[in-house]
């Protein structure tokens, strides 16, 4: 890719080497003093409270997980001064981590920038975090997220501008330089007058994938940067093709929001990433420290469900997908798919809304309340009271009613106790322990009373949901004017049967979560101001309704690809739906149509699985043309596959994936191959270390990338429907360098 350091550039090279050494020595000095101060703080903390673990770095790091929550509650009883100290120590620990990284590589770029009202060009070095020489009062390195750094991502040399807190700032750039610095040594640098040198990017992309997700902080493209730094819209939606860097953008955006939060009033607790799976969570913990951030809260959607409805035995999304894809018993697979589609739809959400409105009219059985022989509350008046008050959730209104009733009971307590004492005295027994006996009687009757009251003031969500499906006629009445699926009767039967068992289906769990949030309350996340969501196409309308209730005051960044759905079809109307449900004053849909992951050949091959009008631009990098291999018997195909694996190893591809349709198929392939070649089966998303040869089902491969991909069982029995087409698209776009297909029998009509 050319010589970066020209002979006549020795002067520049000397300058850069000296500058690098100076910068590193400043960082080192800061690191040393920070380490001392941090140790002192830790000692103080240990002395003042021995109970607090010395290693307290996880103290505030994840407020959202249940385990840490209890820890937090436990810790919160200690005095505030100590927790302040812990917080300080925690912040220092983060800073130490960043400085250690910066000593290895303090910056990756430089722009020479001249403000319009000045005469000289200033050298702006850009790195993962800022470095300030306090003695000289000089900024040695600018954080990549600082306003001026955006110039590097958005412009070539010439006239430029950027948005600063005080307004738009204009100026001129006459040099853009990029560095490769490793272990404190300058390996090379080069100047480029366009945005980010395509050569540099191409070289980075052609490397074999490492086990960890890479940061793209050095190679962020202009349109990616626009998304990462957008603070104008309250809802940003991104439709990005496979390999366009959605997940990277999501992570960089989270890091950017954290950075912006520091200057605004946002703390880590105000920003949440909704991660689709465990793997994504590991990406977060791997990547964000390299971006200068550590404490980002991530929340898995399934954890949200579990926390809200407080149940453990729930079908996971993966279990549902496996059931949908592997269902050879056509009928049962069909009905669970139809049920899923219906119960996550906007129509069903509307039915639930109507049902909730109708609850106090029809389903809550108010009863007159008597105490001490008198009527305290009249059932009709209570109903009117609950119906009249419309501004809070039904569950809250009913709780308020309960408080009111109990207040009236407490007022009457003394007179009631007097009467009870009369009974006890007249009965002639227990005279020795009169007070205790009276109290015992009072407790007994009060218990009966309050249980009667709670029959109508407490909402049992599961019962409420059941009633809806057990009353078909009522259900039809509620859904007047809405379109119901043809097989609605079977969905009734299917749901009623499922609701009898302890094991909750994924779609029913979603509906229960929705009802819970709209009827009772969930205040836990009300302080969240920014939510970042990846893989939006995995979510249905009801998911977004849930997110909207959970984070009422938040802005959203939603990234997805309508072509990467599993077990269903989706189109661009997805984003209209999201827009309508989240209902923010301002929103924008941005398209990322350039794929950086695959070679041009692989991309070209994958587009056959897309709707015709869909266009993907490739970042031109070429490689082998994908081939389809076949053999007469399964055993013979296995041999071809083994030869291909051997070839990939010869080529020094570090990660190789054999992708099958379902977990069942993956297991059977693994059983056949494991004795012949070293290979691993991926059964869940827990594995983030992807160097080696793996077998996995398509739905677990989402979001991952491999140097080489082999699609197995590419025959007409596995892949033939429109849904299967999407699976093939996902599988084939996982490949960076090499893609091949294998089958025996009759080739899939989709190939």
């Amino acid at each position, binding site marked *: 890719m050319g010589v970066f350091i020209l002979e006549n550039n020795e002067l520049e090279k000397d300058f850069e080497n000296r500058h690098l050494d100076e910068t590193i020595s400043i960082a080192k000095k800061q690191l040393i003093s920070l380490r001392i101060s941090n140790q002192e703080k830790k000692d103080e903390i240990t002395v003042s409270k021995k109970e607090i673990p010395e290693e307290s770095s996880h103290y505030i790091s994840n407020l959202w997980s249940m385990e840490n929550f209890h820890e937090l509650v436990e810790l919160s009883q200690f005095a505030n001064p100590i927790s302040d100290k812990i917080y300080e120590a925690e912040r220092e620990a983060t800073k130490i981590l960043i400085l250690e990284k910066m000593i290895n590589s303090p910056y990756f770029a430089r722009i020479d920038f001249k403000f319009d009202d000045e005469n000289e060009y200033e050298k702006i070095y850009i790195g993962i975090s800022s470095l300030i020489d306090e003695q000289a009062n000089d900024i040695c390195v600018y954080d990549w997220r600082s306003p001026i750094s955006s110039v590097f991502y958005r412009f070539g040399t010439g006239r430029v501008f950027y948005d600063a807190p005080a307004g738009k700032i204009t100026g001129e750039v006459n040099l853009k330089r990029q560095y490769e610095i490793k272990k404190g040594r300058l390996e090379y640098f080069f100047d480029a007058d366009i945005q980010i040198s395509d050569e540099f990017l191409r070289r980075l992309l052609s490397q074999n994938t490492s086990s960890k997700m890479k940061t793209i902080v050095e190679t962020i493209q202009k349109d990616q940067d626009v998304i990462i730094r957008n603070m104008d819209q309250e809802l940003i939606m991104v439709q990005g093709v496979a390999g366009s860097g959605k997940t990277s953008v999501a992570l960089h955006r989270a890091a950017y929001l954290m950075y912006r939060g520091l200057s605004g009033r946002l703390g880590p607790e105000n920003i949440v990433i909704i991660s689709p799976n465990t793997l994504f969570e590991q990406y977060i913990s791997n990547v964000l420290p390299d971006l200068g951030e550590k404490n980002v809260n991530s929340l898995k959607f399934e954890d949200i469900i579990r926390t809200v409805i407080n149940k453990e035995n729930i079908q996971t999304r993966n279990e549902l997908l496996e059931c949908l894809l592997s269902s050879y018993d056509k009928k049962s697979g069909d009905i669970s798919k139809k049920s899923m589609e219906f119960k996550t739809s906007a129509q069903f959400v509307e039915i639930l809304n109507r049902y909730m409105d109708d609850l106090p009219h029809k389903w809550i059985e108010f009863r007159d309340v008597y105490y001490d022989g008198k009527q305290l509350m009249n059932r009709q008046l209570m109903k009117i009271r609950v119906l009249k008050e419309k501004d809070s959730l039904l569950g809250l209104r009913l709780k308020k009613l309960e408080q009111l009733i109990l207040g009236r009971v407490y007022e009457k307590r003394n007179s009631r106790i007097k009467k009870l004492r009369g009974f006890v005295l007249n009965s002639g027994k227990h005279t020795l322990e009169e007070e205790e*006996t009276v109290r015992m009687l009072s407790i007994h009757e*009060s*218990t009966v009373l309050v249980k009667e009251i709670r029959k109508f003031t407490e909402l049992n969500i599961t019962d409420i949901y059941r009633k809806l499906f057990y009353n078909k006629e009522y259900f039809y009445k509620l859904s007047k004017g809405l379109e119901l699926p043809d097989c609605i009767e079977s969905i009734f039967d299917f749901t009623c049967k499922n609701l009898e068992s302890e094991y909750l289906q994924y779609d029913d769990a979603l509906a229960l979560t929705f009802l819970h949030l709209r009827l009772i309350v969930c205040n836990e996340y009300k302080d969240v101001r920014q939510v970042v969501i990846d893989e939006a196409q995995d979510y249905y309308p009801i998911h977004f309704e849930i997110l909207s209730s959970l984070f009422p005051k938040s802005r959203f960044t939603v990234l997805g690809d309508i072509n990467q759905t599993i077990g269903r079809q989706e189109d661009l109307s997805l984003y209209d739906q999201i827009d309508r449900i989240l209902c923010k004053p301002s929103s924008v849909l941005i398209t990322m149509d350039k794929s950086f992951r695959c070679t041009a050949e692989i991309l070209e091959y994958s587009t056959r699985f897309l709707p015709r009008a869909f266009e993907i631009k490739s970042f031109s990098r070429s490689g082998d043309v994908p081939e389809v291999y076949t053999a007469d018997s399964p055993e013979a195909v296995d041999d071809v596959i083994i030869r291909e694996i051997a070839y990939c190893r010869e080529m020094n591809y570090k990660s190789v994936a054999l992708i099958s349709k379902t977990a069942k198929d993956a297991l059977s392939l693994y059983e056949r191959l494991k004795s012949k070649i070293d290979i691993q089966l991926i059964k869940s998303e827990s594995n983030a270390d992807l160097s080696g040869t793996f077998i996995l089902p398509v739905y677990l491969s989402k979001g991952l990338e491999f140097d080489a991909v082999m699609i197995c069982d590419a025959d007409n029995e596995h892949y033939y429907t429109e849904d299967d087409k999407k699976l093939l698209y996902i599988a084939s776009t996982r490949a960076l360098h090499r893609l091949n297909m294998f089958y025996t029998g009759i080739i899939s009509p989709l190939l």
Partner: protein
Amino acid sequence: MIYKKVAKILAEIIDAEYEDITPETELTGESGIEAINLARLVIQCEKHFKIIIHDEDVHTFKCVKDIVEYIENLLSDK
């Protein structure tokens, strides 16, 4: 400590050793203590901590730690 005091009161009422009382010792329900003793416990806790325990709440005291929590909440609101 509130727990200690409650456990002592309870031990005296049911004529047991203080050490045998745990936060999990059951108060209501089938394996709970006798109803009259529960009433005694409530009365004495009210007197000692100078609080009012509503009779409607007593059924939620499944075990010792529940009444302790209840008292703690009342005292912290004061």
